[in-house]
């Protein structure tokens, strides 16, 4: 059974007295423990879908089923409680946190809100979370703006897994990181997925990264689904115009020698 099923999602915006469909009749599903990538040029609606799935905005039409329940029907305290199962990692690790926050507070918030542990136990959990994402426990006392971009994104991932969610939405989560750090973060995400069976909704315009970590991909073009299927198959042989354009535009190294890695 699917973890998340989105059916006929539509979201319209008004601009200059015209209604523009940011997303038009979009349907997809995510299975437990798999990575579904959403790819497309800017303006194609990827971020809008992410926000709809996270209930940050409400759709004009359509249904979302999450863990067997009608997700859109939840409101108030029930919705907030259910949010423990569905988390997010943002593109900009600096903007994703309160500028005045420390690492400890950032990780304490989700634990405290969902009543996961007593105060003493929470401190232990925070240390465990930091270690799980490859950071040292003494980072907890540091302020968010003091640590590096890669470390910040690891803290963001730690916050996302704190409530043991079944689905994490990653919106261009590695695009703002240095090249040498990207691989490490992606490895961490895959490791977490293997161990905790977390599904990912991975949004990116970079097909290279998608082909590295996604099981399936959905290609969006101007708010509609242009193509979807197994990631390697779609990227290897795209059928849609946008698919072909995205594949052709991706820069390639064309190395003739490869170091053993």
């Amino acid at each position, binding site marked *: 059974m699917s973890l998340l099923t989105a059916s006929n999602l539509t979201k319209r915006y008004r601009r200059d007295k015209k209604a523009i469909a940011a997303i038009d009749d979009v349907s997809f599903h995510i299975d437990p423990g798999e990575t579904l990538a959403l790819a497309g040029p800017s303006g194609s609606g990827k971020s809008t879908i992410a926000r709809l799935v996270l209930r940050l905005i409400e759709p004009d039409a359509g249904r979302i089923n999450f863990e067997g329940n009608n997700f859109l029907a939840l409101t108030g305290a029930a919705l907030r409680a259910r949010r423990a199962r569905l988390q997010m990692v943002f593109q*900009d690790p600096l903007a994703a946190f309160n500028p005045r926050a420390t690492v400890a507070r950032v990780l304490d918030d*989700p634990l405290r809100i969902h009543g996961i542990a007593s105060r003493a136990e929470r401190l232990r959990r925070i240390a465990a979370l930091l270690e799980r994402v490859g950071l040292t426990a003494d980072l907890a006392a540091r302020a968010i703006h003091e640590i590096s971009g890669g470390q910040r994104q690891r803290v963001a991932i730690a916050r996302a897994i704190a409530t043991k969610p079944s689905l994490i939405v990653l919106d261009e989560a590695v695009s703002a990181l240095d090249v040498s750090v990207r691989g490490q973060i992606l490895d961490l995400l895959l490791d977490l997925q293997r161990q905790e069976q977390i599904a990912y909704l991975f949004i990116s315009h970079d097909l290279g990264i998608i082909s590295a970590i996604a099981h399936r991909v959905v290609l969006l073009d101007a708010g509609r689904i242009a193509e979807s299927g197994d990631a390697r198959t779609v990227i290897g042989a795209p059928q849609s115009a946008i698919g072909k354009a995205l594949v052709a535009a991706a820069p390639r190294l064309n190395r003739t020698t490869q170091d053993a890695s």
Partner: protein
Amino acid sequence: MSQPCRFLRTPEAVAGAILLAALIAMALSASLLFPGDPQAIAGPALLPPFQAWSLPLGTDRLGRDVLAELFHGARTSLAVGLAAAAAALVVGAVVGTLAGFAGGLVDEVLMRITDAFQTVPSFLLALAFVSVVGPSLGIVVIAIALGTWTGPARVARAEVLSIRERDYVAGARVIGMHPLAIAFREVLPNALPPVLAMSSVIVAAAILTEAALSFLGLGDPNRVTWGGMIAEGRTVLRTAPFLSIVPGIALVLTVLGVYLAGEGIVETTAVRRGLS
């Protein structure tokens, strides 16, 4: 560089801090240096300043020690000024944050209330309030706050409207934080800096408003205030101008000190964006 260090490097901050320190010292030491009732008769009436060692600033129409009144008056001015400003800032920040964060009907209602208060000149509002309810220190504080809370409210709301769209607010929603918790734990602390930047002006205005109310006889009659002293000296302005000038100078220096120190704090706490 630590914040106290940066503060001390700003000339206006240092000047303001010195003036404020002098004022606070005056207020705190009033009972020590001038025990007893400052409104008790201390010597002959209308003694000019620098004539007698025990009465360095002379006496007023009833023979009360001007210096003692000055020191005790500092307490009132400082207490009322700071309390009124604090009340205005707290009420303004809370109203502005609620309006900006909630949006919709709540925003509309709160903003119309703010409009209503803003259309009445703040001094007249304070005047009317004290006249109706009766003069006492607490009432004066409330009266002044009533006229000045709208400025911080608008500034806070504007900041909140922009902060509301930031990623970390969305992040707080995603982890399931209650909207009120988001408004007051995540948004308000980050919306405060421009509100606090107004604080020095508000404190200065509060002190002056209190002085004006006292001048008109609407201050607390049991307390010595600088405004009251200026009022007392009005009738003998030609023969004994020092009775009004001395508290007047004290007011000017206080307002200047508060303003400079406030500017210094704003300079110090401003987020420095270095080269990236």
